[in-house]
């Protein structure tokens, strides 16, 4: 079986995987980082979004072996000890989650947006979230959270 090596949340991570192992399976089942969720498993819902080399991707639509040598950041890697990342804080302040299932993907997607476009408008935020589905339909507060976080992330 292939061995993969990557950096996950700043720490080296490696393991033996089948070639067909998805990145999300490696994160959840091998590394036990279960903050990254599997919703639809068909590349549509975005619950599995993580950052690979600084870009948000759907970890259910990437093989673990494709991330060989990459720097991966998951929802577990955002907070600095006990202090939440500004995006997490903003989701808490604005009730940006209901059941919470889509939240890890929403937050990771939103951080990528604000890194690229610190002054994203409401319309741009809504367009960016095309690949993240909230089954509770809580988009209004999710958008509000991202707008607040953008201000607090130095945008």
């Amino acid at each position: 079986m292939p061995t993969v090596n990557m950096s996950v949340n700043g720490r080296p991570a490696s393991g033996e995987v089948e070639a067909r192992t998805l990145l999300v399976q490696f994160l959840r089942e091998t590394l036990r980082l279960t903050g990254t969720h599997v919703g639809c498993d068909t590349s549509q819902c975005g619950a599995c979004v993580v950052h690979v080399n600084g870009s948000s991707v759907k970890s259910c639509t990437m093989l673990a072996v494709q991330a060989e040598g990459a720097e991966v950041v998951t929802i577990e890697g955002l907070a600095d000890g006990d202090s939440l990342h500004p995006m997490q804080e903003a989701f808490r302040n604005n009730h940006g989650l209901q059941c919470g299932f889509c939240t890890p993907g929403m937050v990771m997607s939103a951080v990528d947006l604000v890194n690229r476009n610190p002054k994203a408008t409401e319309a741009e935020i809504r367009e960016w979230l095309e690949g993240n589905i909230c089954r509770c339909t809580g988009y209004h507060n999710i958008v509000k959270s991202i707008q607040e976080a953008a201000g607090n992330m130095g945008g």
Partner: protein
Amino acid sequence: MQDFSYRKAQSIAEAVDAMGDADDGAFLAGGQTLLPTLKQRLAAPSDVVDLSGIAELTGISVSGDTVTVGAMTPHAAVAASGAVRDAIPALCDLADGIGDPQVRNIGTIGGSIANNDPAADYPAACVALGATITTDRREIAADDFFTGLFETALEDNEVIVSVSFPKPQAAAYMKFPNPASRYALVGVFVARTGGGVRVAVTGAGEDGVFRAGAMEAALTSAFSPDSISDGQVGGDGLMSDMHAGADYRAHLVAVMARRAVAAAG
């Protein structure tokens, strides 16, 4: 997903050799279509040859009036390229509307056109702009490249290296996305070039992307939304499914073409 042997090629020659050695191999570009296909077991290759380690397949260059996009360049890079926006802004807009941001971050132009999904966006740009597809062994005109539903002129083990787009005088792409999948129910790319107007339609044809000859003739005479009428593309040969009938698709072709012409100016 059935398991397979995985190999990350470091050169085009290595990729071609690896495919030659495989019983039933598949190239892996961004994987945004291939992996969902494997998950559904619609395909079960014995070998997967990853092209992402081949540096020369990625990148964008503009030379004179030609924009060349490396096969492994992700959609997000095309969408964000200032050089492409200066030369062919319609190409940036098209790339910026493919899938969703996460798909655009990893999905590639080479993967898209090699797959030739009848509802994919890039084939319309390639055909309307008269692009040239460069492979490891030859150059193929876009008009000859897309040969049918999920079919291309690519031979076994042939690797797309890059796609070159000549700069048009004006161009625009308009699509009517399926409300659920966001794939093009109909997409129309209109390009005004020195050799006349070219109109390519995706999402609608039973055999995939096609050129709308009657619209091209009308627009070459007078480049105006008023030159477009409903009868120029009829329902014959268009797809009919639960999302839209052939006649409705034919109507949408005219509507999208009119909007594209207006946007191209």
